[in-house]
C-alpha cells in the first residue's frame, strides 16, 4: 500500500509526459481522456489513502530519495499524507478530474490541445507535490511548480502579447512571495536544523524556541502565502491571470493553487500558535484584501474578472479565519469555495463558450433560455457563494463570521460588509448575464447554444457539491450529532485549540439571521436594478467618481507600475548607461588608453636629432654617477 503515495504523484506526471511528448500525434479525444484518466487514477488512489488515514490519524510517510544532503542538512524527496493532506488531495484530484473532462470539450479544436492537457497534468502533479511533500522543501518544489504551470497556462495563448504579460506578472509576483517563503525556510533551517515537518513541528511544540525568530518565520511564510493566495499587496496578478483559458481559472486560480497559502498556514499552525503578531497581521491583511477585492468586484464588467476579484475576496476571508486561529473554518471554506468557485468559473466558461469567446457581461443577458443547465448551475453557485441558507457557502462563511465575532468585533463588522458586497456583485453578475434582455450581436445570438455534456456534467456534479458541501462541517444547531465532522477530522493536524470561545447557540442563530437578511436585501436590490429596470452596467470609460475608482481597481496597478516597475527599469538603464558603460568601462578603457597616450608623448622625445639624444644620454649619465656617489 505504501507506494500509493508515489503513484498518486507519478500518475499525473506520466500523463504530462505522454500527452506532452506524443500528444501531438494522437487524436484530441485520446489525449484528453489520457490526461483525465491520469488524474482519475490519482483521485481513486487518494480515496484509498483517505480511507487509510481515516483509520490511522498518524498518517503515512514515504521517502523516495535523498534530494540534498549537505553538511548537517539533509532534505529528502519524501511524501506524506495526513488528514489535512488527504482532504486537499481529494479536492485537488477530484475537482481536477472534473475540470479535465470539462476541458476536453472546452478546448476542442485548439491548436495547443495536447499542450493544454500536458500543462494541466503537470499542474496536478506539482499541486500534489505541494500538499503531499513531507518537508518544507517539497512544499517549495510544488509551490514554485504550480507557479510555473500557472505561468504556462495563463500565457497559453502566447500569440497575444497581453496574455504573455499577464503570465509574467503572475510569475514574478509569485516569485516575490517565494522569496519570502524561501527566507522563511532558511530561518527554519537555522532555528530547527531541519525542514522536515515532523522534526520542525515537534521541536516547535516544545515551545522553547526564540519567539522572535518564530514570528519572523511565520511572517515570512505568510509573505509566501500572500503571493500565492493573492493577498494585499501581491494580489494584482490574479485578476490578470484570467487571460488563461477558463478551465485554468477554475482549477488553478480558484479551486486549488491559490489556496496553497491557506494550506501553508494551516500546515504550520504549530508555529503560528507561538506567533500572535503574525496572526494579527494575517487577520488584518485578510480583511483588507477581502473588502478591497469585493469593492473592486462591484464594478467589473468582465465575467471572469468579477469571479477573480471574488476569489481574492474569499481568500481574504479565509485568511481572516486563519488570523483568528480558526483553521477548521478556513479549511472548510477552502473546500466549499473550491466547489462553488470552480462551478462558477466553469459556468462562466460555458457562457463564454456559448457566446463564442465573449466575456463582457454587458453584451450578454437573457441566457437563461438558451443555456438552461448553465443557468441553473450558475444560480446554485451564486447562491452558494452568497450564503443562501443551507447551501455550502452558508455554513462555511457563517462559521468564519462566528469565529471572527468572538475574536474581534470590528473585523467582524468588516467581514460582514465584505459578505454583503459579495452577495451584491455576484447577484449583479448573475442577473446581468442570465436575465434581462440579450445584448449581443446577431451572430452571437444565432450561435448561442447549450454546452456539450462533457461540460455540463461536471457543472452538475459541482452544483450538487456546492449545495451539499456544508454537510462536511455542520454547526451544532443544525447538525446535532453530525456536527463538526471536519473539525474532528482535522484535529490530529490542528490540535484542539485551547480555551476556544464557544459562542452560544443564540448568538450563532442571530449571526446567521444577519447573514440571511443581508442576502435578502442584496437580492432585492440587484433584482430591482438589473432585472426589473434592466440597467446595463456602464462601460469602464463611462464611470465617474467612486465607480471610476473601482472600475480602475483603485489604480493599484498604476501605482505599482510607477512605484516599483518603472524605478527598477530606470535603475537598470541608469546602471547600464551611466555606471557600467560611462563609469566602469570608461575607466578601464582610460587605463588602457593612458599607455597609448604616453607612447604618443614619448614619440616627441625621440625626435630624430642626434644632439638631443646625446644631451639626454649625458644628463642621464650625470644623474646616475651623481646618485651613485652621493647617496
Amino acid at each position: 500500500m505504501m507506494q500509493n503515495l508515489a503513484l498518486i504523484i507519478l500518475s499525473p506526471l506520466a500523463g504530462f509526459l505522454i500527452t506532452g511528448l506524443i500528444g501531438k500525434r494522437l487524436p484530441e479525444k485520446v489525449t484528453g481522456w489520457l490526461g483525465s484518466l491520469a488524474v482519475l487514477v490519482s483521485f481513486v488512489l487518494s480515496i484509498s489513502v483517505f480511507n487509510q488515514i481515516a483509520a490511522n490519524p498518524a498518517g503515512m510517510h514515504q521517502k523516495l530519495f535523498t534530494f540534498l544532503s549537505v553538511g548537517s542538512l539533509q532534505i529528502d524527496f519524501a511524501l506524506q499524507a495526513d488528514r489535512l493532506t488527504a482532504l486537499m488531495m481529494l479536492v485537488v484530484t477530484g475537482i481536477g478530474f472534473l475540470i479535465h473532462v470539462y476541458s476536453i470539450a472546452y478546448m476542442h479544436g485548439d491548436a495547443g490541445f495536447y499542450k493544454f492537457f500536458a500543462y494541466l497534468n503537470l499542474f496536478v502533479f506539482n499541486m500534489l507535490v505541494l500538499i503531499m511533500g513531507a518537508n518544507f522543501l517539497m512544499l517549495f518544489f510544488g509551490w514554485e511548480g504550480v507557479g510555473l504551470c500557472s505561468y504556462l497556462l495563463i500565457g497559453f495563448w502566447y500569440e497575444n502579447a497581453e496574455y504573455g504579460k499577464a503570465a509574467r506578472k503572475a510569475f514574478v509576483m509569485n516569485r516575490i512571495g517565494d522569496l519570502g517563503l524561501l527566507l522563511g525556510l532558511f530561518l527554519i533551517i537555522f532555528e530547527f536544523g531541519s525542514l522536515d515537518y515532523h522534526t520542525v513541528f515537534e521541536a516547535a511544540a516544545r515551545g522553547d524556541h526564540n519567539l522572535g525568530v518564530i514570528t519572523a518565520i511565520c511572517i515570512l511564510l505568510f509573505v509566501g502565502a500572500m503571493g500565492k493566495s493573492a493577498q494585499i499587496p501581491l494580489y494584482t496578478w490574479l485578476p490578470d491571470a484570467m487571460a488563461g483559458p477558463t478551465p485554468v481559472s477554475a482549477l488553478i486560480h480558484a479551486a486549488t493553487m491559490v489556496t496553497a497559502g491557506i494550506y501553508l498556514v494551516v500546515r504550520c499552525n504549530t508555529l503560528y500558535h507561538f506567533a500572535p503578531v503574525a496572526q494579527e497581521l494575517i487577520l488584518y491583511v485578510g480583511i483588507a484584501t477581502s473588502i478591497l477585492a469585493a469593492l473592486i468586484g462591484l464594478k467589473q464588467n468582465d465575467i471572469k474578472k468579477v469571479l477573480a476579484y471574488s476569489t481574492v475576496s474569499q481568500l481574504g476571508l479565509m485568511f481572516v479565519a486563519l488570523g483568528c486561529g480558526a483553521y477548521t473554518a478556513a479549511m472548510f471554506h477552502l473546500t466549499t469555495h473550491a466547489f462553488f468557485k470552480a462551478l462558477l468559473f466553469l459556468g462562466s466558461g460555458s457562457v463564454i463558450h456559448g457566446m463564442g469567446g465573449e466575456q463582457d457581461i454587458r453584451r450578454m443577458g437573457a441566457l437563461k433560455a438558451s443555456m438552461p443547465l448553465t443557468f441553473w448551475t450558475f444560480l446554485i453557485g451564486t447562491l452558494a457563494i452568497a450564503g443562501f441558507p443551507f447551501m455550502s457557502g452558508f455554513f462555511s462563511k457563517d462559521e468564519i463570521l462566528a469565529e471572527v465575532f468572538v475574536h474581534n468585533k470590528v473585523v467582524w463588522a468588516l467581514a460582514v460588509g465584505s459578505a454583503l458586497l459579495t452577495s451584491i456583485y455576484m447577484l449583479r453578475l448573475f442577473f446581468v448575464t442570465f436575465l434581462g434582455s440579450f445584448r449581443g450581436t446577431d451572430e452571437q445570438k444565432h450561435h448561442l447554444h447549450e454546452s456539450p455534456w462533457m461540460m455540463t456534467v461536471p457543472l452538475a456534479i459541482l452544483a450538487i457539491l456546492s449545495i451539499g458541501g456544508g454537510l462536511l462541517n455542520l454547526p451544532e444547531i443544525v447538525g446535532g450529532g453530525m456536527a463538526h465532522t471536519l473539525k474532528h477530522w482535522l484535529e490530529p493536524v490542528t490540535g484542539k485549540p485551547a480555551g476556544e470561545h464557544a459562542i452560544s447557540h443564540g448568538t450563532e442563530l442571530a449571526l446567521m439571521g444577519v447573514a440571511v437578511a443581508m442576502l435578502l436585501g442584496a437580492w432585492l436590490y440587484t433584482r430591482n436594478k438589473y432585472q426589473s429596470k434592466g440597467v446595463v452596467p456602464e462601460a469602464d470609460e463611462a464611470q465617474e467618481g467612486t465607480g471610476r475608482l473601482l472600475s480602475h481597481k483603485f489604480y493599484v496597478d498604476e501605482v505599482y507600475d510607477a512605484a516599483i516597475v518603472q524605478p527598477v527599469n530606470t535603475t537598470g538603464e541608469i546602471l547600464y548607461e551611466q555606471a557600467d558603460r560611462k563609469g566602469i568601462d570608461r575607466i578601464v578603457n582610460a587605463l588602457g588608453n593612458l599607455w597609448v597616450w604616453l607612447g604618443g608623448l614619448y614619440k616627441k622625445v625621440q625626435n630624430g636629432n642626434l644632439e638631443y639624444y646625446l644631451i639626454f644620454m649625458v644628463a642621464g649619465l650625470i644623474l646616475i654617477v651623481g646618485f651613485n656617489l652621493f647617496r
Partner: protein
Amino acid sequence: MKPDSIFHTVEISHYIYLSCVLFCIGLFGVLFRRNAIVLLMCIELMLNAVNLLFTAFSSYMGDSSGQLFVFFVMVVAAAEAAVGLAILVMMFRNTRTTDVSFLSNLKG
C-alpha cells in the same frame, strides 16, 4: 721605470683631475658642436684623456697592463676613426654637408 720618475713627483690626483677636465672638454664638445668631423675629434680627445689616465695609473701602481691597454685603445681608435671617416664621406656624398643636425629623418 724608476720610482722617482716625474710621475711620482706629481700627485696622482692631479692626473685624475686633468684627464677628467680633458674628458669633459671632449664631452661638451660632442654635445655642443654639430659638425661631424669636430665631433669625431672631440671623441678622440676623450679617448686621449682616458689614455692619459691609464698611463698615470699604470705608472703610479707599477703595473704594466694599463699601458698595454693604452696601445689597444690607440689602435682601435685609429680603426674606428677610419671607419668613421668613411661613413662621413658617404654621408657627405649624399647630403653635401657634414652637419649632423640635418640627419633627423629617422624619428618617432
